[in-house]
Every structure is written in C-alpha cells, then in structure tokens.
C-alpha cells in the first residue's frame, strides 16, 4: 500500500471518500443537517477537490454530541471506546468498530516497519494505557509485527530503566519530553529506537536526544478523534511524516479563512477518515499546524509527507503583534547546550509594551561563579531565542526545580495580560 502509484491511490481515495460521505450522511444527523444547510448532497462529490464543499467538524462537535451523537455504526458493531478529557468539562467519546481498530493497528504496524522495527525487537510502551489511545495503539502495532511488547505505561522511571535493562528492550514509545527528562534511559541498555509523538516537538529536541543517547528518534503522529498513533510516521529519509492517506485523507487550510491551501503552504491540518465506520470524521480540524509536500520521497513511498507538528494553532501566542509558539522558545534554548529546556513564558500588561519574560532554570553544568560567564550565558540564550522569534524578551535565570510543575511538566505559559 505504501508504494501504490499516485493515480490509483487518488482513485481509491475518491471511491472511499464518496462511500464515507454517503455513509455519514445517512447515519450521522449533525453531518446531514450541516450538509443540508449548505445544499450539499453526497452525489455532489465527484472529485477529491469537491471535498471543499463539505462542512468542517471540530472538537467542540464531539463534546456537544457527547457521548455518541457522531456514531456511525450500530451498537452491536462497536467493540471499543476511547475518550479524552480535554481541558474543559465534558469529555469526548469515540466508538470504534473492529474494522476501525484493525485500520488503526495497521497504521501503527506500517510506522514501526518503516522505522526498521521487526519481530525480535523488544518494545517498551511507556505511553499511557486506557482511554488514551497512545498505549494501546503502539501495543497492538508491536504485537502485530511479532515484537515482544512490554506494556509498562507511563511513570516510575526507575522501574522503566530496570526492566529496559533486564529485558533487553530495543525500542521505547513515549513522549519526547518524558524521554528527555529521564535521559539516563540509554545507560547500559540495548535501546536503539525511540518512537516519539503525542506532543509537538522540534528538530532541536530530536538532535539533543540522538546526540545524548545514541538512539534513533522516530516521529509518530496520530489522534484519538481520527484513530490513534499511526496516522503518520517519518521514514528514514526524514523528509517528514508519511500520512497513510489511503485511510486518512489530509488537507491544509488557512485557519482564518478556512480556504484550502495548496501543497507546500503551512496551515491547519484537516483530516477526513475514509474507511472508518464507528465514528466517521469529515474535515476534522486538528488545530495542528504543518504543511503537505508532494515531492517524491527517496524511500519510494507515494503517501504524501507532512512536516513534524511543531505547533498547534491553540498554543499560538501573539506577543507585540508577532506570532510566537512555545516550541520556538524551546528550540532556541536547545541551541545553548548547557541549559536544560526548562522554561516558562510570563506575559504581563504594562502601560506601554506588554512585558515578555522567559524564566530559564540554571543547571549545574551551566553554573559558573564568574559573573561575566553567567551574563554571557544569559546573552547567548537571548540571542538564540531572538534569532528564532525576532523579539527581545527579558531572560531571567532562576534556580533549578523552582518553576511550578504539575505531573512533571512545567506550565509553559503564564499569560497575565488583560484581555
């Protein structure tokens, strides 16, 4: 499938899109209502470009229609629910059929195969198990390939390292920040692969991980609303992440005008599931910012490639009129090897320009008792951040472990500006 020539692939996508639209039109009342409002009927979809006639869907739809308003398949075909809490109140709930689970597992297997993971590898799945899709997705993908899977879930770093060493683990799946926080992971283990996703990250983070631990850091992408980890993954040529677009049809839109953007332009990623029954999602807005590329990848896969997600449109801050993403600050800090990427952005209103401060924790490696050295460090951090975002924040050095953390993660942004 991965190497299918483009023309038959587009024909397959059109066929599946038409099927999905008809399927959802007949079974999902909200989708039908929105199509009727626009005067669109399933037979209007004659080409892939006609997808732009269809209404978008959003996370709030899933919340409003909680628990199962967007369900497509009858209950006797549903085999599993996945849910995510979201940040405000009501959760979202995704009913899946057996076929949906198979498609998802297949996507994870295709990713693992692409990374060079085979039967004989020992895969430690340190993503959370349960309602969150991270753990189970990699779990079934690994088992499907014949890997020995260690379903350890998150937390307890010491036990993670002990089992990794004792069982000869060769691959770990977790968030890049979890891995970075326990960099000791590599020490006297057989670990060779890291499968990272579930949060935005950057090339600098990947370079840091690979340099400090000697493993290969692979990208994986997925989301519960569409299926789970294994919607897309990066091949060894690192041209981006190949999207398994025989099941998940991607578009890039301008998040303000909602108009489709051509391949190559950065915008919001939108997915349409074209083989899903439990919860068909049409033009689902992911809030993730990326771009699609059509250039042929040297690996020979024909599935389009997207850039790694380094930002979400939700995370975007507007500071002094400039768009800034926390990931950019992180990327800047990683250019200064002695400082850890432990930082917090603080924004406050003043009478004139808003105050923009970045607090950075000082590490043992970065500390010198020479004032000039420390001033120089502050300046290098400032220069690195400035070169990326084009603004001049105030850089404050603070003592280690003083930035407030919840569940091991620092709250990245404190925005006290008057709205």
């Amino acid at each position: 499938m991965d190497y299918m020539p483009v023309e038959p692939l587009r024909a397959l996508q059109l066929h599946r899109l038409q099927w999905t639209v008809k399927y959802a039109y007949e079974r999902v009342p909200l989708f039908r209502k929105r199509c009727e409002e626009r005067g669109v009927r399933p037979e209007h979809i004659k080409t892939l470009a006609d997808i732009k006639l269809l209404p978008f869907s959003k996370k709030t739809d899933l919340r409003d229609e909680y628990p199962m308003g967007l369900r497509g398949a009858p209950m006797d075909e549903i085999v599993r629910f996945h849910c995510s809490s979201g940040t405000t109140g009501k959760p979202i709930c995704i009913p899946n059929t057996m076929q949906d689970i198979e498609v998802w597992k297949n996507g994870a297997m295709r990713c693992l195969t692409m990374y060079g993971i085979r039967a004989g590898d020992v895969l430690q799945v340190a993503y959370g198990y349960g309602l969150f899709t991270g753990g189970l997705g990699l779990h079934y993908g690994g088992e499907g390939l014949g890997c020995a899977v260690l379903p350890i879930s998150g937390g307890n770093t010491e036990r993670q390292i002990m089992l990794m060493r004792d069982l000869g683990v060769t691959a770990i799946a977790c968030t890049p920040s979890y891995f970075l926080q326990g960099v000791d992971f590599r020490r006297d283990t057989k670990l060779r692969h890291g499968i990272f996703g579930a949060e935005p990250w950057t090339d600098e983070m990947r370079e840091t991980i690979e340099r400090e631990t000697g493993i290969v850091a692979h990208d994986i992408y997925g989301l519960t609303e569409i299926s789970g980890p294994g919607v897309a993954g990066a091949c060894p040529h690192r041209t981006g992440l190949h999207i398994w677009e025989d099941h998940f049809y991607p578009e890039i839109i301008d998040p303000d005008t909602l108009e489709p953007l051509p391949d190559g332009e950065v915008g919001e990623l939108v997915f349409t599931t074209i083989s899903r029954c439990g919860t068909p999602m049409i033009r689902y807005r992911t809030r993730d910012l990326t771009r699609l590329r059509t250039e042929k990848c040297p690996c020979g896969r024909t599935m389009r490639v997207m850039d790694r997600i380094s930002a979400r449109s939700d995370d975007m801050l507007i500071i002094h009129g400039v768009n800034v993403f926390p990931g950019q600050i992180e990327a800047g800090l990683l250019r200064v090897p002695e400082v850890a990427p432990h930082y917090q952005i603080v924004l406050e209103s003043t009478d004139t320009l808003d105050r923009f401060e970045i607090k950075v924790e000082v590490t043992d490696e970065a500390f010198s008792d020479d004032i000039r050295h420390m001033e120089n460090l502050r300046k290098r951090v400032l220069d690195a951040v400035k070169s990326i975002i084009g603004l001049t924040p105030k850089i404050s050095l603070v003592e280690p472990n003083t930035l407030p953390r919840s569940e091991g993660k620092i709250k990245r942004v404190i925005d006290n500006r008057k709205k």
Partner: protein
Amino acid sequence: MTINQISVFLENRPGQLANICRTLAEADISIVTLSLADTAEFGIVRMIVSDHDKAKEVLKAAGHVANMREVVAVTVPDRPGGMAEILDVLDAAKVDIEYSYAFAFHHGEKAVLVFRFDDNEKACAALAAAGHPVLDFKSVLEEAK
C-alpha cells in the same frame, strides 16, 4: 597552594541569601568569609566555609546550584602600599585575575585578599617568590577563630 571556595547561584528574589545561610547553619557549617557579586538580574555568593564538601552537599539537597572552585588567599602586608605591592607582583607575573575580594579577620588588623586566577599555580609561585605568604585552609580557619 589553594583553598576551596563554594559558590552558589542566587536568584533575584528576597530572602535567598538568608536561606543559604540558614541551610549551612542547620548543618553546623560555619561561614569564614562571604562575598556577594550581583547584577540587577541575579547574584553569585562566594563563601569559604568550615566544611566545603558538606556545604555543597546540603546546598544541593536544598535545591541550590552550587560549585566548588579553588582560590588563592594571601595576607596583605600591614604597611602603606601593601595592596599595591601584591598587585604589582601579579601584574609582573602576567596572570589574569578572574575576580577578587578582600576580607578582614575579626580580631586582628590583618586583611586578606582572595583571588581567582586563570592560572593559580603560577600566581602562587610568583607571590611566594616575592615573599608574600599564601595562606592554606588550616591557617585561614585558625585566623578566623
């Protein structure tokens, strides 16, 4: 001959220096000298204490960033121009001073200069050759009593 000095990063917020002193006092470590270098944004406390290894341990355990550096302590001759004499010796020996600070022992009239050089060995040799005694840790503790 060098002496260990402990340096601690000081974040720019009230009560930080007091916290450090309290941490040391609770571990029964006495502070022989304390010098503070600061900017508008942060500071560095440099201390010679009765037990450096233990001080570093308790400060780290209390969440501070601390490191140990070797410094040179030299007595300033008790005569006019005494300090200039020392600086001239160092100048002639072409050693760079990263930083320095002075302190006086409680009881005596003796002043002591503490230096951090780019090359401590070379500086010590030059001072010794010019007849300026470089203090060892024991004598610093003795003098401080």
